[in-house]
């Protein structure tokens, strides 16, 4: 066996990216961004609110956090659901204490299952971001355009109807997309997505239905990634969040505004033993001058009007 000769052909070997979604751009050579009121850091807190169906498929891949025990997996089904019953309310209370307005990325099906949860998020003054339909419905290139569109339409419909908000932000389950996803999102009125992990500032992507903004969301300081993939302690998580903030804050003095994103999960940071670590991280960030906290949608709007 050997490989066909076209394995050594590289059709997208050219200047810039090997696709047409966006241009390459050097974070440190861009026109500096000024956030409202001269803020140096836009603090984007995004809490995942998730439903893991008991019968979720394992193909073509499972979203992180997926049920992993033999069916029926009582263990992880209920552990994840804990976040929706209890954990999220701890996070909401802490955010209210700190008077923070943030984003909650919610699986569409949650609006149907737990409208009271969505109400509590709205009453806290937060933004609803669509987090796909549920954690078993991952987006990937094996879906036809119609199949994928139906999932997007349904997720947005449920969240828009229940919340009364426009719901223009999107986070795919597992941050997974297919080739068509940005086109379908833009077509359905989504103006920004949180899936791509390649920047510390918003940037525009091309779609067939006009531009969509890629909003920064940290991958490796996500509470679930640190706890469940790296198996690091809560103290280690807080330290890395602080260190991340310090560098972005320092850079903002020279290079203009930065986005500090803080991805949370109701079933991770909402645990009793973890929520005070979240407080420590927030207190540290908020002790600095020039931190502007806002929902991701507002940060996206500020980026657009600044450009």
């Amino acid at each position, binding site marked *: 066996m050997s*490989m066909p000769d076209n394995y050594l052909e590289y059709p997208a070997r050219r200047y810039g990216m090997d*696709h047409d979604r966006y241009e390459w751009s050097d974070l440190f050579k861009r026109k500096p961004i000024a956030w409202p009121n001269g803020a140096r850091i836009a603090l984007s807190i995004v809490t995942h609110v998730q439903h893991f169906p008991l019968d979720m498929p394992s193909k073509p891949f499972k979203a992180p956090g997926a049920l992993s025990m033999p069916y029926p997996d009582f263990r992880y089904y209920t552990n994840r659901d804990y976040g929706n019953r209890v954990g999220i309310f701890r996070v909401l209370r802490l955010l209210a204490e700190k008077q923070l307005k943030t984003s909650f990325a919610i699986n569409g099906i949650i609006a149907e299952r737990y409208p009271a949860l969505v109400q509590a998020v709205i009453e806290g003054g937060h933004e609803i971001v669509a987090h796909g339909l549920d954690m078993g419905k991952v987006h990937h290139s094996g879906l036809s355009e119609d199949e994928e569109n139906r999932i997007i339409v349904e997720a947005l419909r449920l969240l828009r109807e229940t919340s009364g908000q426009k719901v223009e932000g999107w986070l795919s389950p597992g941050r997974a997309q297919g080739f068509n996803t940005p086109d379908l999102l833009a077509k359905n009125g989504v103006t920004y997505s949180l899936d791509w992990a390649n*920047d510390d500032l918003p940037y525009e992507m091309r779609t067939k239905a006009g531009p969509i903004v890629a909003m920064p969301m940290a991958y490796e300081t996500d509470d679930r990634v640190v706890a469940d993939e790296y198996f690091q302690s809560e103290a280690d998580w807080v330290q890395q969040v602080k260190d991340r903030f*310090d560098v972005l804050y320092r850079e903002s003095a020279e290079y203009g505004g930065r986005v500090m994103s803080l991805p949370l999960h109701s079933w991770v940071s909402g645990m009793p033993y973890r929520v005070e670590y979240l407080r420590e991280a927030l207190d540290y960030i908020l002790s600095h001058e020039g931190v502007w906290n806002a929902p991701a949608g507002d940060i996206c709007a500020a980026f657009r009007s600044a450009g």
Partner: protein
Amino acid sequence: MAAEANPMRSDLGLYDYLPWPNRPKIVWPGNKRIAVWIAPNIEFYEYDPPNNPTRTPWARPNPDVLQYSHRDYGNRAGWQRMMAAMDRAGFRGSVSLNVALCDHHPEIIKACADRGWEFFSHGIYNTRYVYNLDIEQERAIIRDAFETVRKHTGQELAGWLSPALSNNFWTMDILAEAGIQYTCDMFHDDQPMPVKVKSGKLISMPYSLEMNDVIVYNTQKVTPRHYGEIIKRQFDQLYKEGDESGTVMCIPLHPYLVGQPHRIDAFAEAIEYIASHDGVWQTTGREIAEAYHASGAYDAMNAAMSAHNAANATEKGIR
């Protein structure tokens, strides 16, 4: 994997044994104790790469936008932080380069070249492996790498790290035949060692798995501050032993990992710590290979290995 390319056998067969004590002494330029080199892997992972039956590039179906974008972070943001930290500590880089990056991001290549950094080859893309290639196809990759690096930087390749560390048994022979002086694919020593190849003189250059941020962060999953700590401890030990005979320490990096905001300061502090020692030779892979030959270490190590083999054979005969 073609059976004739990689027949099953129990020994890699690319180097001879030589115990650490009582080796010929390595003397680095300026009588420095330790050669420290930093090898940033400046990589391009493809959005929609072809599959290779031995290894699928992405865990999820193409496009795996989370992993793709995570790596792209290095080329948009991370490389600048990494480079600034190295500038401050006075380190030049020896770039482990996916050579297609010359086409995609010449701005990054220029910034490295302007600093006098060395480029060595890490294949064309990190999503194209040499598994299942025939020998002529693998030679074509080596030619492409030489030509691309020459065209974009004027440099003649001296070093090689196979793309995603994929290898065939013949790989070392055809690298040496093409004029490559050192390989980074083997981790059996803290000093450069001759590699047994059919032609030319190939050195195995100490690179490192355990100092490599991709192993540290993606496999071992340690914290950034722990990474800073192990870099310093690795250095302390090799610096001490370098008083007897010159050692080599490599720090292999990936800007998408070490260049993250929550990681850069711990790394920066560690390399500043290294640079603060008088007996450190801050150098590049190419310079280490040159010094190894010029000082006679290559020939001395070969002779020592032959003598060790001969002594072993005699002892077996006596038994």
